[in-house]
């Protein structure tokens, strides 16, 4: 465990000895602390809340993709009985956004609307129906502007730019960096492959639609309960826009009915209900419709990619040049970070000695894209893993062998200066190859049947916070009751992944108490220490460390007093089964509540805090803030498909997946995350896509659950899951992430399996039947994008790799950029 800053007292040494003797809780599968509430319908999600005198809010959204707002007439709405307040953007002129470099949203649009669905006017009324009637009586006069719907057009800058910031015109972000000498690497290669691929955008589709309830407390403070994954960032945004000190704004995140990244931005509707609550002095609630959730989006960016890679005969890479063009939608959201992420993690799975990345994100008049499970990395992972499959075929190698030969070494530093810790990809590949019977299947199944392999890696939390600060990323307080209860406070938010349970289990492990004796207070900016939020797969590692440290400090105080009372050296004390006792004479001990009383009598009230800040990354160049993580998880998967030769329909018959999680905290939850990730990846691979009618002004084609195809029970195949535990020195108990990584191999594994089955390449996600058929009919047996536009890179930052004797900095910095990016 990390705590190297503090000397190891005998009490702490005792804990380490105890953990070395075996875990009581870690790695087991107790039921989730909130499971019974969930199966009995008692969990209160945001829309389940109501208050006396509560008003209902509805938002009028733009029906045009791009326009100037000329006037807004709300008089007819105001005249409607039951309407209490009508709100326009003029009342909230301060912009906000998740990233400090993209403060480009307004709670209600001020002068322009940028996509169909942009919020314009809000109404608070005595019931939802009245609010709905009211917004229909509002007249907004628009002057239409010429919209742009795709980034290849947007990059040419022929339209009026959506925003007055960014790199130029509609180019929100342009980045170019080279690590080592890529052209030399290509010259030294035996085989150079160039591929252009496309990954269509898709959305989170959490079963719960976003909802929020805000009210003014009697003392003037503002409280909001909301379905958010990031209460801390919402707190900051609300305080900024509403011009209230953070100390007087309280954000409580409700348990999320699924998030997957879709509830990670501070949202306009959250700020709107807060403002309406302040205006009316009544509680105000909003519950978005499913259609509105589609327009809120912040989902997967559509990305057009070009990847050029040099290979030696043995399959190892000499270098890679990766280019990505992201379709950002109408606002910044996490987009700058997403752009960097499309170029960050190509290097952590296989050895890439020289690497260049060029990325551009454009604004377009569509719902904003942002972070969805895997944030910015599934798209490049698809391109890379499909290209590796092509390379294996070209070189006459087995794709599994090719990968095994080129693995990035554990503990090494990548070309782009990412510090790899534990690395279990090799065992992951071996496991799925063996379990699936890969060697007997690949290239050997009858026509129409095939297997595909792909791998991935993901961060266990971003190394840097979203806004620059030197404070911890997670904090936990542990307070011991005389009755033996343990109160634990943390800002973390359970979105279904089970973070509440992880928090309780870590504390229970250290203190040797029952989960039932632990009570949690979480996700409340008034009562809990900050945890940055449920994004970037950060919670288990960061909160886990903070919880361990807080519990360890509480244990130390108790152990000191108990050692005195029992007259045994503190190092010999063990905390287990709700007792504290001498390991050499287990009869000599006392119940945990008694131990707390002894300690409280000596030291006073026992409440200890712990916190966690990730280690510094070796990369120091501009843009090095995206990619570093305390630890990287690894996954490998084999997918077996049956392709209908007449219809092109791809049926997935079975999936084998192995995930290197470092160490499971709760094994059942880890497997649940793997299965859930596999499911979601399969949806992306086969059917999920956000598509718009560009000829009909950017209206979403399919904003409903019926038309947005996602896998039902019928499409979900059996999955065999294997966990590889290669404990990471930076993880609590060695744990790494599992929430996002296992999704990533699905899309390339499906595409590779389709090739094995029918010999065609679909270089595009989703792999739909029409594309398979078209590829089968095509001369080149391929379906996918044919060209990649000029990204208009004028300057490339050059960074020497470790092998070249570099130090992680860029010696010749390019032209000064406006602001540094440090975010996840």
């Amino acid at each position, binding site marked *: 465990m990390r705590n190297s800053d503090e000397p190891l007292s005998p009490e702490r040494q005792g804990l380490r000895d105890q953990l070395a003797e075996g875990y009581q809780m870690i790695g087991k599968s107790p*039921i989730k602390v*909130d*499971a*019974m509430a*969930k*199966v*009995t*319908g*008692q*969990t209160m*999600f945001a*829309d389940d809340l109501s208050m006396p005198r509560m008003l209902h809010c509805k938002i009028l959204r733009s029906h045009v993709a791009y326009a100037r707002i000329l006037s807004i007439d709300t008089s007819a709405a*105001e005249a*409607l*009985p*039951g*309407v*209490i*307040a*009508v709100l326009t953007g003029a009342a909230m002129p301060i912009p906000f956004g998740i990233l400090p470099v993209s403060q480009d949203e307004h709670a209600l649009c001020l002068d322009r609307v940028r996509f169909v669905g942009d919020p314009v006017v809000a109404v608070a009324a*005595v*019931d939802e*129906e009245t609010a709905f009637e009211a917004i229909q009586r509002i007249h907004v006069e628009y002057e239409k502007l010429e919209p742009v719907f795709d980034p290849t057009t947007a990059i040419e800058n022929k339209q009026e730019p959506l925003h007055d910031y960014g790199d130029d015109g509609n180019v929100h972000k342009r980045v170019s960096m080279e690590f080592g000498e890529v052209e030399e690497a290509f010259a030294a290669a035996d085989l150079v492959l160039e591929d252009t691929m496309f990954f269509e955008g898709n959305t*989170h*589709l*959490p*079963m*719960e*639609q976003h909802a929020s309830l805000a009210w003014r407390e009697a003392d003037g403070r503002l409280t909001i309960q909301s379905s958010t994954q990031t209460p801390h960032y919402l707190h900051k945004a609300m305080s900024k826009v509403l011009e209230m000190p953070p100390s007087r704004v309280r954000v409580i995140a409700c*348990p*999320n*009915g*699924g*998030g*997957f990244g879709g509830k990670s931005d501070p949202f306009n509707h959250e700020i709107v209900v807060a403002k309406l609550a302040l*205006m*009316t002095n009544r509680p105000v609630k909003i519950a978005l*419709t*499913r259609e509105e959730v589609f327009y809120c989006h912040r989902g997967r960016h559509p990305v057009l990619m070009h990847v050029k890679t040099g290979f030696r005969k043995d399959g190892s890479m000499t270098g890679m040049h990766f280019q990505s063009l992201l379709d950002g939608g109408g606002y910044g959201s996490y987009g700058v970070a997403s752009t960097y992420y499309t170029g960050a993690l190509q290097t952590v799975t296989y050895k890439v000695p020289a690497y260049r990345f060029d990325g551009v994100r454009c604004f377009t008049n569509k719902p904003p894209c942002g972070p969805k499970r895997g944030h910015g990395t599934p798209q490049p992972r698809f391109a890379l893993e499909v290209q590796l499959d092509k390379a294996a075929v070209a070189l006459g190698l087995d794709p599994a062998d090719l990968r095994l030969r080129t693995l990035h070494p554990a503990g090494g530093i990548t070309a782009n200066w990412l510090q790899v810790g534990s690395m279990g990809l090799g065992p992951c590949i071996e496991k799925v190859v063996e379990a699936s019977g890969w060697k007997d299947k690949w290239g050997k199944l009858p026509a129409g049947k095939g297997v595909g392999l792909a791998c991935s890696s993901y961060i266990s939390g971003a190394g840097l916070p979203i806004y620059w600060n030197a404070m911890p990323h997670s904090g936990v307080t542990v307070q011991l009751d005389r009755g033996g209860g343990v109160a634990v406070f943390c800002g973390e938010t359970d979105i*279904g*992944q*089970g973070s509440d349970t992880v928090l309780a289990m870590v504390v229970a492990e250290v203190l040797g108490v029952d989960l039932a004796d632990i009570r949690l207070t979480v996700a409340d900016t008034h009562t809990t220490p900050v945890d940055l939020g449920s994004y970037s797969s950060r919670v288990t590692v960061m909160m886990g460390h903070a919880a361990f440290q807080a519990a360890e400090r509480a244990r130390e105080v108790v152990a000191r007093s108990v050692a005195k009372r029992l007259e045994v050296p503190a190092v010999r004390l063990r905390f287990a089964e709700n007792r504290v006792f001498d390991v050499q004479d287990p009869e000599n001990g006392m119940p945990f509540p008694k131990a707390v009383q002894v300690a409280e009598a000596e030291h006073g009230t026992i409440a200890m805090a712990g916190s966690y800040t990730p280690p510094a990354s070796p990369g120091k160049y501009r843009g090095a803030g995206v990619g570093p993580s305390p630890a990287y998880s690894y996954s490998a998967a084999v997918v077996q498909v049956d392709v209908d030769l007449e219809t092109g329909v791809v049926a997935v018959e079975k999936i084998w997946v192995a995930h290197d999680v470092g160490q499971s905290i709760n094994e059942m*939850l880890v*497997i*649940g995350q793997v*299965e*859930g990730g*596999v*499911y*979601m990846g399969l949806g992306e691979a086969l059917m999920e896509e956000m598509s718009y009618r560009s000829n009909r002004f950017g209206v979403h084609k399919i904003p*409903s*659950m*019926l038309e947005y195809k*996602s896998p*039902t*029970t*019928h499409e*979900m195949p*059996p*999955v065999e899951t294997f966990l590889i535990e290669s404990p990471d020195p930076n993880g609590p108990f060695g744990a790494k992430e599992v929430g996002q990584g296992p999704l990533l191999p699905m899309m390339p594994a499906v595409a590779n399996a389709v090739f094995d089955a029918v010999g065609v390449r679909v270089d595009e996600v989703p792999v739909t039947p029409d594309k398979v058929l078209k590829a089968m009919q095509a001369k080149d047996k391929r379906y996918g994008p044919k060209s990649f536009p000029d990204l208009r890179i004028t300057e490339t930052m050059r960074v020497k790799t470790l092998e070249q004797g570099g130090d992680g900095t860029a010696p010749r910095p390019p032209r000064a950029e406006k602001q540094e990016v440090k975010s996840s």
Partner: protein
Amino acid sequence: MKPATEPDSPARSKVQMILRVNGESHDVAFVPHKTLLEVLREDMRLTGTKHGCELGECGTCTILVDGVPRLSCLMLGLESDGHDIRTIEGMAGACGAHPLQTAFAELGAAQCGYCTPGFLLAAEAVLARDPTPSRATLVEELGGNLCRCTGYLKIYEAIELAAARMQKGTPDA
């Protein structure tokens, strides 16, 4: 913003009806065009029944009407007249959770838990008809319920575990 004096509320006449929910009769007044989902959640405060679309597309709002799974977002409250409604709130008895609920908790079949009430009631109806359902039956019967968290696998396992326990008459051992 309007002056502090509040205007008249819209006049919405309500109907009054006896709803039979979870074995109890409730005298409820509600606006007649409300769906049963809305009546349960808003007028009876039974918020255990969730919604994902309110268009009949996701199964989240599944309840049992005379033992048959129905989408409460597609039924009017008025249509429940004379029928026996069962919601998630009625699933656990005084002596504890239903075996399905226990199994869902034990096997991690409820991640975010938002789809869970709908799945539990749908599963209860399946087991009432077929106490030992095959996987194929579960795939078929639960095809109208979407879950975005679990990939359905743990849900199948939980229903099978509960079914086995109910067969043996050992609810949660």
